[in-house]
């Protein structure tokens, strides 16, 4: 009997894989949306398909991805992601502090900036934006930060290019609230002359908006898959026209679908920058198309300087996770090297403190606290820190067959793989657990002191964050091997947030929201460690912060003290370092690794992307700092 389809499948697939590239790489003149390919920068969207692409009103929601904050809007101050320091964009210099309580500020803006429809940008727009945000604060959904930061009706114009405003509390981070912090700004000026004409600003869609940035929306897909931006002719008069000339005439943000199809399109040069492609796919793509490159030619290949780090957040308020011995036992039972190799091909940078280890945070936190880490002792005298984590990982990678030329040596090892991490020692973990009455039962799994079996509910994202999903399953596997009965669950976005916020639902989860210290200003991550953000251990009420469930009074005091300091001062930094030490010695957060942002680029049509040896900006296409890339890339001439 003939069974055609089955026998055809295997050799067919083999042929496809081998023959794919040769056929696919024919040059294309036009993009799918009708623009010349070599004048268009095509980028995979960060958030897939947008559900309400019509909604382009920054006061309300959504108009953040797909190019709005990178190309369309403009801000008072921007963040230079190569150094972490803010610089003025719409503003002319830094704000002037008017009173010793640090609540009154005067801001000057640059003259000569024009909206895309030719009207000049003045303080009228800024004051109108503030007034509107307050007037409709119950109906607008994207104004909560400003409304709780600025004092109502405290703004006034000094002249067309100067205004004054007052904050509700003493503010030391004015520039990074009214301007960009890492990837976005809470304050986005809207055009007064357009918005004031609307009958209802709260439902105004603002389609094809009037923009301050050098790009306008040329076309967008009503189904939400793509958005096409076009360079303004008068880009020099735009909000960041003084940064340099934007090179692509068009920028297309498009969702190329699931990774299985995206990789094929990428190899065919259909787009230039991907977002979060998994490491093994990138490797296979590089083999098929030499124009595809990662951030660095050696391990860990990808940029590891994202603002946040992944960690395991434990509900410290619930037994038995309320005991530091238990938390340490969990940390020592993770074979992070194997987890990293399985989940992300070994392409990760371990971070032991509760924040990412980046060139910016390294001199501020990691280097000063290195002695603390190496000297850290547990109650029984055990020293858990392994400063040779990187070299050990390299040895394992060599066993896996990785070529020496791809592996860093010398100083580059710590720069690539981190200053170190905790040892993998399940025996010590068992000792710690036994010391609090948790012993292994007959089935090999740990039981609680009262004899009942102990299951840990471990939550992490599903497909919407593949890396965390894989890491989660691998960590669960590591824990199971050590004797913990883990119920690993991948969850959707909505449930993820609910578990994060609700005490009764959380036991352990992978998260990143409280470990996002990008530069010296750690308050953005740790500001919420206050007694008001502690709820009962089994409460069903949602938390609005303090997702680590910190109950340590020492930390509360440190945070309270830090709010009174200038964010660029030494005293402020000292508070931050001490908080990090407290969190670490109690293992209140099992920090894992920097977020590996895998952004492969395709240099067939464009070159000079930010790379490890050409680091002029963070390479993320969804941060507002993408503007630096726009200004620095060059066409290859194909």
């Amino acid at each position, binding site marked *: 009997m003939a069974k055609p389809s089955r026998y055809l499948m295997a050799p*067919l697939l083999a042929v496809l894989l081998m023959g794919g590239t040769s056929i696919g790489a024919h040059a294309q003149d036009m993009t799918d949306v009708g623009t010349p390919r070599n004048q268009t920068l095509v980028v995979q969207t960060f958030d897939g398909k947008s559900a309400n692409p019509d909604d382009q009103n920054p006061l309300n929601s959504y108009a953040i991805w797909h190019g709005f904050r990178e190309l369309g809007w403009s801000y008072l101050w921007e963040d230079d992601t190569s150094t972490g320091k803010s610089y003025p964009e719409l503003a002319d210099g830094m704000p002037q502090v008017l009173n010793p309580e640090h609540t009154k500020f005067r801001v000057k803006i640059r003259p000569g900036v024009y909206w895309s429809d030719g009207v000049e940008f003045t303080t009228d727009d800024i004051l109108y934006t503030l007034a509107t945000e307050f007037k409709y604060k119950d109906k607008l959904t994207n104004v909560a930060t400003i409304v709780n930061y600025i004092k109502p009706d405290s703004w006034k114009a000094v002249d067309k290019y100067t205004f004054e405003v007052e904050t509700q509390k003493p503010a030391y981070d004015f520039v990074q609230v009214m301007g960009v*912090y890492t990837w976005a700004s809470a304050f986005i000026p809207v055009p007064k002359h357009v918005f004031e004409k609307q009958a209802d600003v709260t439902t105004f869609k603002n389609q094809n908006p009037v923009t301050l940035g050098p790009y306008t929306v040329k076309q967008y897909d009503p189904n939400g898959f793509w958005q096409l931006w076009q360079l303004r002719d008068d880009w020099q008069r735009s909000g960041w026209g003084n940064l340099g000339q934007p090179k692509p005439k068009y920028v297309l943000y498009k*969702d190329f679908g699931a990774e299985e*199809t995206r990789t094929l399109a990428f190899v065919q040069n259909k787009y230039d920058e991907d977002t979060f492609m998994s490491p093994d796919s990138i490797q296979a793509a590089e083999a098929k198309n030499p124009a595809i490159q990662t951030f660095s030619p050696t391990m860990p290949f990808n940029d590891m300087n994202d603002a946040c780090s992944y960690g395991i957040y434990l509900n410290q308020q619930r037994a038995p996770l309320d005991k530091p011995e238990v938390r340490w036992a969990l940390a020592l039972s993770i074979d992070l090297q194997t987890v990293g190799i399985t989940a992300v091909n070994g392409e990760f940078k371990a971070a032991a403190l509760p924040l990412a280890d980046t060139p910016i945070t390294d001199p501020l936190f990691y280097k000063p606290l290195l002695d603390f880490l190496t000297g850290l002792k547990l109650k029984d005298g055990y020293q858990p820190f392994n400063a040779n984590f990187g070299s050990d990982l390299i040895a394992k990678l060599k066993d896996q067959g990785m070529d020496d030329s791809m592996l860093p040596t010398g100083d580059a090892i710590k720069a690539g793989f981190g200053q170190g991490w905790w040892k993998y020692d399940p025996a010590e973990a068992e000792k710690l657990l036994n010391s609090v009455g948790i012993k292994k039962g007959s089935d090999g799994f740990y039981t609680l002191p009262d004899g009942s079996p102990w299951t840990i509910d471990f939550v992490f994202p599903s497909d919407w964050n593949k890396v965390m999903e894989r890491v989660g399953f691998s960590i669960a596997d590591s824990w199971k091997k050590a004797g913990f009965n883990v119920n690993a669950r991948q969850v959707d976005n909505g449930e993820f947030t609910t578990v994060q916020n609700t005490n009764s639902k959380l036991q352990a989860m992978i998260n990143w929201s409280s470990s*996002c210290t990008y530069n010296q200003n750690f308050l953005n991550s740790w500001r919420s460690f206050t007694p008001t953000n502690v709820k009962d251990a089994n409460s069903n009420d949602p938390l*609005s912060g303090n997702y680590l469930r910190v109950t340590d009074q020492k930390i509360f005091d440190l945070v309270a003290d830090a709010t009174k300091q200038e964010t660029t001062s030494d005293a402020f930094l000292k508070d931050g370092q001490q908080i990090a030490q407290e969190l670490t010695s109690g293992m209140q957060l099992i920090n894992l690794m920097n977020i590996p942002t895998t952004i492969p680029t395709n240099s067939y049509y464009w070159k000079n992307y930010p790379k490890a040896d050409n680091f002029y900006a963070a390479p993320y296409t969804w941060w507002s700092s993408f503007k630096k890339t726009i200004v620095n890339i060059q066409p290859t001439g194909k």
Partner: protein
Amino acid sequence: MGVVQYVAKRVATYLAVLFIGLTITFFLPRLLPTNPIDSYIGQIQSRAAGMLTPEAIASLRESLQQLYGLKGDLLSQYLGYLNRVVLHFDFGPSFAYYPAPVSSMIFTALPWTLALLLISTLIAWVIGNAVGVVAGYFHTKRWATVLEIVGILLYPIPYYILAVSVILLLAYVVPVFPLSPTFPVGQLTLPMVGQILYNSFLPALTLVLAGFGWNILSMKALAVATTEEPYVTFARLKGTSHGTRMIRYVFRNAMLPQVTALALSLGMVFNGALLTEILFSYPGVGLLMRTAASNGDYDVLYGAIALSIIAVATAGLVIDLVYPLLDPRIRRA
């Protein structure tokens, strides 16, 4: 009169089914351990880069609860929901993408789903049944068995695999079709229709491949059974040609259950929509449902599922009313 009674009874059943179905779908999303407000706040937080203070979050939560109408106990919410949906066909605002109204989101996505699935289901049905009736009529021949085997092999192949293979073959190895669709914007012109067809070809092909295996098999089985019926033998003895016998006698009689199946499968488009739309990035209701479920977006879910229930129930109603016309034997009952 019998007919009026029958119709009335049938319509009454239809309405009762709708009511129960809508009630069940109201309560189901409430089983979700997801609070839609949390989901929305989560999105805002991820954009806010840590700027959102706890006070800001708390105040936002308050206003969202008001806006979403999630205050009040379950019973009053249920009555409000029934009132809105049944009397006004208003499914309310989406939670995750407030204030976009659910009906507009669904009605933007609906034409895509309907077009794709109706057309491919129809094609699969026509081709499958044609092949099936021929194979069933000549079921003693060798090649009929071969055709049946083709059906047998296609039928169990998981849909996802069919989809990936189709993409690899027709968009990568032989790049005739696009790897991911780009649907044109603007007024509907003839070249645009062409573009739409071009971009929809792959998902349609996969659906046809997935569907017509079953049609071949079931039609063949029915045709075989019918061919053995006495009245067909009688027709053969009477001297009619193969063609006439095949079409007028076998097909017409075997067709009835197939028509039922067709109508029901048309009503069930939303079941098949999902995988297709996710894999091919197809902007239909299935994708909408998936995103809504992950965000805990109750209203969009109600809307989509309610629509689906209405479609299937209506299809069933139409069949039951039309069937007697096709098959005189049933009219008696």
